[in-house]
Structures are given as structure tokens and as C-alpha cells.
């Protein structure tokens, strides 16, 4: 067991994740919900990058001047893939929102409920 203070960075990513989740659940604007989703995604990326960190480590770029220890490189590769997935989800969601706006004239949940 390590106390939470030692894992402060992990704790911060959980806070970011929950802020994003709160926006997704509670905000009344669909675009804001999408931003909340993006915050959640980046929070998970931050968690994964943090897990691959090593104290006093160097970036995983090998060469004559570089000396171990290196940061674990796999989390970085995973996060790169994750960022791309996130942007393509966001783009599709934005296109869907344009369609919603064309059909109903609003992106506010309360208004949408009335015009459904």
C-alpha cells in the first residue's frame, strides 16, 4: 500500500476523469457533453503515460548520448493510438451534431425534448 500522496499524479487523473464524466452526465448542451468526453479521454491518456514514467528517466529515444533508465515506451505508443481514436470519434460526433442542429434547430437538451 502506498499512500495517496505518493500517487498524487494518478489521483489527479482520476479527478480529471470525473470532471469530464460530470460534464457528460450533467451538462445540458450536447457540444459541452462532447467536450466532457474529450476531457475524460485525455484523463485516461494522462493515467497511461504516468504509469510508464520512471524517476529520472529519459525519453525513449535511443542514441549515443542517451543513457538509461528510459521511460517505458509502450504506454506512449498506446496513447498515440488513443489520441487518434479520440479525434475521429469527435469528428463523427460533430457531424452528427450538425445534423441534429439542422433537424431541430438547437443543441440544448431541454429544447430537444420539447421538439422531439
Amino acid at each position, binding site marked *: 500500500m502506498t499512500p495517496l500522496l505518493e500517487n*498524487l*499524479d494518478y489521483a489527479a487523473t482520476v479527478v480529471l476523469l470525473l470532471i469530464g464524466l460530470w460534464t457528460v452526465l450533467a451538462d445540458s448542451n450536447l457540444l459541452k457533453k462532447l467536450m466532457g468526453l474529450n*476531457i475524460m479521454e485525455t484523463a485516461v491518456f494522462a493515467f497511461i*503515460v504516468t504509469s510508464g514514467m520512471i524517476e529520472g528517466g529519459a525519453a525513449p529515444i535511443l542514441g549515443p548520448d542517451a543513457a538509461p533508465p528510459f521511460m517505458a515506451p509502450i504506454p506512449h505508443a498506446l496513447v498515440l493510438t488513443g489520441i487518434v481514436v479520440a479525434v475521429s470519434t469527435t469528428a463523427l460526433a460533430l457531424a452528427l*451534431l450538425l445534423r441534429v442542429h439542422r433537424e431541430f434547430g438547437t*443543441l440544448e437538451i431541454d429544447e430537444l425534448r420539447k421538439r422531439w
Partner: protein
Amino acid sequence: MSELFDVVLLTLLILTALAVARARDLAAAAILFAAYSLMLCLLWLHRGAPDVALTEAAVGAGVTTLLFLVVIARTSR
């Protein structure tokens, strides 16, 4: 125990995320989101992940924000 730099940056990140969550003006929220992404990019550079930082700056803060702005402009006129 994390360094002071990390603590300050993480606090700022959380505050910016809260500001995004609370902003009523959509364009302001989008710009705040870009600021949030750039700060995250700084954090990752500090964590020894320059590749991730570059991608976040170009994709997260760049392309995503621009797409958000296009849609905000189109849905508010």
C-alpha cells in the same frame, strides 16, 4: 512525492478542466479546452513523452479545437 512543477501543473489542469465544464459560452469553452490540451502537452513533455506531447499539440489542441470552432460557428448563426 511529486515535484513542485508537477503539482502546480496538475492543479492548473484541474482548474482549467473545471472552467471548461462550467463555461456557458461555447466558443470560450472550446478555447479553454485548447489551453487545457496545451498544458497537458507540457505535462507530457515533462514526463519524457515528446511523441505524445507533439501529437497532443497537433491533434488535441490543434485539429480538434479547430473542428469544434467550425461547428460552433455553424450552429450559432
